[in-house]
């Protein structure tokens, strides 16, 4: 089974460890993993800023890079939403390219969904002692239905989960929103951080690096140097 890893631009730039954790999990489960070197970004920053053409151009670029793979996996619900939902429901709707993108969408998985639904893993390499709380990122949750999969995997690694109030509430990241309307974004993030603090968990875990950087940035600014901020891949791969 040839699996293409879509690293995501944020992981590439900021937290390579998440990419390697994903790699470890996929290889550990017996997948032949390829990482196309020319990959850059799924195009969502452009798409959400109104740059439809650049979004389409990048979608075509991703399509070309992963055409030969049986599956494509990304450690992000947001980028996965872009390639699974935005392409077929909007960007290429009614265009000759649509069948190609439908094929890509069908074989594209968010990491936790791939591990649970396709690979049906029964164990993970990571061992985590302690309590975590899980933030449901909006795109993964509401566009793709990512909810129980990461929790299931975290519990497989031994983590206890203390659910926060409003786990499904947006953290305020929203890509460029976090800069364009930074003050509102910060307030939304503070609401999320309040919920996290109230759980007393030692780590906040999520599946999208954008949200995690946002949350980590706010926690640290408000003096919390201890709460770990982790991608679930790091926890279940034993690299948290």
């Amino acid at each position, binding site marked *: 089974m040839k699996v293409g890893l879509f690293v995501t631009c944020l992981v*590439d730039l*900021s937290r390579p460890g998440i990419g390697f954790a994903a790699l470890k999990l996929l290889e550990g489960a017996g997948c032949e993993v390829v990482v196309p*070197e*020319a990959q850059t970004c799924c195009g969502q920053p452009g798409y959400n*800023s109104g740059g439809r053409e650049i979004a389409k151009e990048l979608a075509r670029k991703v399509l070309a890079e992963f055409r030969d793979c049986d599956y494509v996996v990304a450690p992000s619900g947001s980028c996965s939403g872009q390639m699974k939902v935005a392409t077929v429901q909007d960007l290429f709707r009614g265009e000759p390219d649509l069948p190609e993108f439908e094929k890509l969408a069908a074989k594209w998985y968010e990491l936790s969904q791939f591990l649970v639904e396709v690979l049906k893993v029964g164990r993970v390499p990571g061992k985590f002692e302690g309590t975590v709380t899980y933030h449901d990122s909006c795109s993964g949750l509401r566009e793709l239905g990512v909810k129980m999969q990461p929790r299931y995997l975290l519990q497989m690694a031994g983590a206890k989960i203390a659910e926060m109030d409003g786990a499904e509430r947006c953290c*305020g990241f929203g890509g460029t929103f976090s800069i364009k309307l930074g*003050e509102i974004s910060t*307030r939304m*993030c503070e609401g999320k951080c309040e919920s996290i603090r109230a759980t007393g968990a030692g780590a906040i875990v999520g599946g999208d690096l954008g949200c995690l950087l946002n949350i980590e*940035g706010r926690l640290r600014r408000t003096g919390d140097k201890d709460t770990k901020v982790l991608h679930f891949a790091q926890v279940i791969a034993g690299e948290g």
Partner: protein
Amino acid sequence: MQVQSMFFKQRASEKLGDALLQGNMKKAKGKFVDGRAKAVAEFGVWEEVRTHAAKVRDRALANLDAYLVEFERNATRRGAVVHWAETAEEACAIIADIAARNGVRKVTKSKSMVSEEVNLNERLEAAGVQVVETDLGEYILQLAHEPPSHIVAPAVHKSKEQVADLFQKAHGKPRLTEIPAMTREAREALRGHFLTADMGISGSNFVIAETGTTLTVTNEGNADMVTTIPRIHVVITGIEKVIGTMEDFATLIRLLPRSAVGQTIANYLTLTTGLRMPGDADGPEQMHIVLVDAGRTKLLGGPMQEMLRCIRCGACMNHCPVYQNIGGHAYGWVYPGPMGSILTPVYVGLENAGDLPNAATFCHECSVACPVKIPLPELMRKLREEQFDRKLRPWPERMAIAAWAFAVKRPALYAFLSAMGARVASWMGGSEGLIHSLPGLDGWTKGRDMPAPQGRTFREMYRQRTRERR
């Protein structure tokens, strides 16, 4: 209403700093969101009815011309006069003219957002007509000289104490702080107006083509006093509110109060078909129905048509985390929240709407809550596309996107730039790995640190790993 959406960012900032408002908003949120969730869960077949409701609204829009004519025919047959207003000005002129011709000195009003849209109160007051808002929330705001901040609960941004101050001043009686006593006092103040008004103005949540019916959905019963007591009843509503049949209405009314406030049905649901008939105990002598376009037909057949499905329940704003934090006034026009981020630019011009289409993280809470399945984030994105194409965004933002677009299409350049960026940013992050301020990104760093990259990109590390394994 004057459009002030250009000041969204500043006003949002003020609202974030308004501790009183923040407290009031927090209280309201739970009521709306939890109430709706409970009502939806109890309903059992929510998704099925929601899908059907979207179809009902789509069918109405596809047959808008035919349904409107059918409505006019049936309403006329029952004695009402149907007026067509292409613009806000025309709507006001029609109603001001009806008032003038009939010597109207006092108008009682039940809640109507379309009347806010067209500035009806101002226009009537300029003509010397006294206008009394009778919905409790609208009444409070009329005393406070403020526009509504929510389409269903217009005074949701006010606390009981703020209202107590207003009532004390307006009613000239000792300050009351118990809600039942306060509402009783307001009721007493309004009662005289109900009995002495010459004209009652109401909105209409839908207008039903096959019967010529207009209707009001309220919890206070004030609309019934407005529509039945005065000798003239004027209905003002948007042309998109037309639906085909009573059956369609039965579908939509199952969703509306549940979505709005979590009620299975509103306290008062009144269908009005025509004038007082011989033998009727009450009802007006004249009924005028003003159907307002004011930009709606421009949406037909275009990319924003789905917005016309809206049944004005307010669920999108109740569930919007941006709205929840800043309240409705920051949006700067009649409709707040996701609904307003679309209706404001399409009705008053994208160039007058400022940041509104960008006032969303695309978290999709609104589209999930919408009872008629309007893809609100997608519509906002279309407006962003138009802003992008018309170069309406500030130039630094456009430059940044252009630079980003140039780089991401060129993998070798991108690899180089990201490797450099990771190193520089990592150095900036120092030993803690946190960047405290970053030029051009102060929107982020004002309230948050930027967790710094770790020095090398995944691409570089993966390449090294591949080399080592060979």
